[in-house]
């Protein structure tokens, strides 16, 4: 897993962002993880184990699907979907949970904890825990438990203990607080599988490395169908930013590839939203310095999105850096645009995307305006929409 750009630095910083803002109790655990991951990263046996799990269990490589009817409907560039929705458990999240559980096993950890918003990361964690027979505890906000009930049932069926979090926002932010508190309390035997490119170093780097397979596959797949490895534009939704970094990472060094991260604009950027990079400011939350939705006093504000997976007031530190450097353009799509995105992709391509993914789809009609018909756009279809049918049904 060689690096394609030299960040983060040794101390886990992406420019101003990243770092390890955690209580002292977690420092030995983070140090242990940092060393274990640095060793695993260089170990061919680990790489082999990971590749085998990704192909034989998770279903990789995922297809790159040309969207003929969507392309025609939008009348612009050729649109391809990177089909992470076809991964085992229905989203890209499993790429990372496989990587982390293999690491946890190498480290001899027996107790796995995770936070979840939409439940996709929780399901992906519960899945690999079942596969390896490890105890699994998932923290989930009360509100998310209601709106993503199907995923709660899946986690329970997989043997996970789903713990409802009723503090603060009752969504992903507070589920993450509770997971960190659990980690502080059970630091010796517990491995915390963080679900996005957030948290203290080395998580943002490690989670990115486990997801970069998305972009790496896209390169050779695109080479096969278009005769060139890089598209003209790559698009992904951004909550914490794991699926986006997974796709973008392979193209960061191709300056002609336009990269678009689509955040959740909720009810609109002047109302309740979750567009951290668009409307937030630098701050420190959950162990890292990044952009944050916060008030003048540095109190973290509640995010809002129709999609539980994007309903988070922070974002990965590497995205903060990519925003400031201008390498990635961050845009946003509203709840209503996301619903339109679900309908559009379902009707034109027979693919029902997750509400998170639907933000990237919903952004397309405006976002690709001005692009030529011979240009190529790859959209990361990060997850499937089955889990969201309850929410989607209210808007049909």
């Amino acid at each position, binding site marked *: 897993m060689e690096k394609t750009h030299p960040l983060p630095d040794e101390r886990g910083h992406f420019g101003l962002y990243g770092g*390890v803002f955690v209580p002292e*109790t977690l420092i030995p655990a983070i140090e242990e993880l940092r060393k274990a991951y640095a060793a695993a990263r260089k170990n061919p046996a680990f790489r082999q184990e990971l590749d085998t799990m990704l192909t034989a269990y998770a279903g990789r490589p995922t297809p790159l699907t040309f969207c003929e009817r969507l392309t025609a409907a939008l009348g612009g560039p050729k649109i391809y979907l990177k089909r992470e929705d076809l991964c085992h458990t229905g989203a890209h999240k499993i790429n990372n949970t496989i990587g982390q559980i293999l690491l946890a096993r190498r480290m001899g950890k027996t107790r796995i904890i995770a936070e979840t918003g939409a439940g996709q990361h929780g399901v992906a964690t519960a899945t690999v825990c079942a596969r390896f027979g490890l105890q699994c505890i998932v923290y989930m906000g009360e509100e998310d438990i209601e709106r993503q009930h199907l995923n709660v049932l899946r986690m329970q069926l997989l043997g996970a203990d789903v713990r409802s979090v009723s503090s603060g926002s009752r969504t992903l932010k507070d589920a993450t607080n509770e997971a960190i508190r659990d980690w502080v*309390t059970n630091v010796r035997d517990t491995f915390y599988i963080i679900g996005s490119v957030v948290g203290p170093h080395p998580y943002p780097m490690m989670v990115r490395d486990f997801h970069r397979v998305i972009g790496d596959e896209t390169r050779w797949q695109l080479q096969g169908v278009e005769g060139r490895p890089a598209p003209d534009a790559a698009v992904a939704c951004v909550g914490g930013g794991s699926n986006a970094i997974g796709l973008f990472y392979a193209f960061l060094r191709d300056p002609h590839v336009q990269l678009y991260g689509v955040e959740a604009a909720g009810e609109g950027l002047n109302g309740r939203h979750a567009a951290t990079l668009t409307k937030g400011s630098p*701050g420190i939350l959950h162990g890292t310095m990044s952009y944050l939705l916060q008030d003048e006093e540095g*109190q*973290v504000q509640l995010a809002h999105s129709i999609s539980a997976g994007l309903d988070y007031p922070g974002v990965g530190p590497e995205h903060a850096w990519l925003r400031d450097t201008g390498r990635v353009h961050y845009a946003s799509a509203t709840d209503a645009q996301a619903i339109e995105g679900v309908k559009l992709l379902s009707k034109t391509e027979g693919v029902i995307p997750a509400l998170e993914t639907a933000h990237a789809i919903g952004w397309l009609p405006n976002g690709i305006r001005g692009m030529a018909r011979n240009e190529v756009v790859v959209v990361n279809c990060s997850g499937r929409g089955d889990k969201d049918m309850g929410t989607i049904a209210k808007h049909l």
Partner: protein
Amino acid sequence: MQRLQERLAGCIQRREKAMGLFMTSGFPGPESTLPILREMDRGGADFIELGMPFSDPLAEGLPIQRSSERALQAGVRMKDTFNTADAFCAKSNTPLLLMGYANPINRYGISAFCRDARNAGVEGLILADVPLEEHLPFASEAAASSLGLVRLIAPNTPDERIREIDKATTAFVYAVSITGLTGSGLGAIEQVEAYLRRARDMVRTHPLLAGFGIGTHKDAVRLSHHTDGFIVGSALIEKVETLWNDGSKPTKTLYEEIRRFARALKEGDKTVEQEKA
């Protein structure tokens, strides 16, 4: 930071265990914090920790979480915390420290924050989520404003790192008694004592105080056996919560009970002991 150093040195010289008491700013209400701090002072606190409420206090157990939430709901702001500190420090020689999380300070501006804290009479800072790895901007601004920076250690901190932390602190070393949150139970006390003995061997330059999980005089005696003193937070928050939520007692009595509670933490419950005798 001089007053804090002198106070702790005085305690050590007199072979007395120093007692630090924590209260959340703006709790149980914006007007109540200052009189509570004064009662804590009268009850024998050697220093006061005034908590700056944060929306996501991830090292805190439920009592301090609840107190922060309540304070924020009541609209407490950083300037209110400075005003409380200022009013307290104007009338007491007992050193006051601010305790909290990095983000509100970062938002305020680290330099401006340290300056305003100093102007309010604050002696030092305790930052729950700023380990050595990230402490540089905070440490240099604190030093520039003559604020002491307390550093924490935990039971799983390796020896070498404890020594490093002892060197890096400019106030005292705060030994978190357990791998856990504020307000947790102490668990197997022999383990806690073994850790504190180890910490005592490593911390040679600065005073060493134990905190987290101390709720009674008995806990305080046991945990300060190997240290220079102890810190109580959650137990005091719970005491305030119980008293204020009850609502049946006159305000004056409530404040008196805080003073009595503080004194009992430090000296034991003399009345109970006398009755027994």
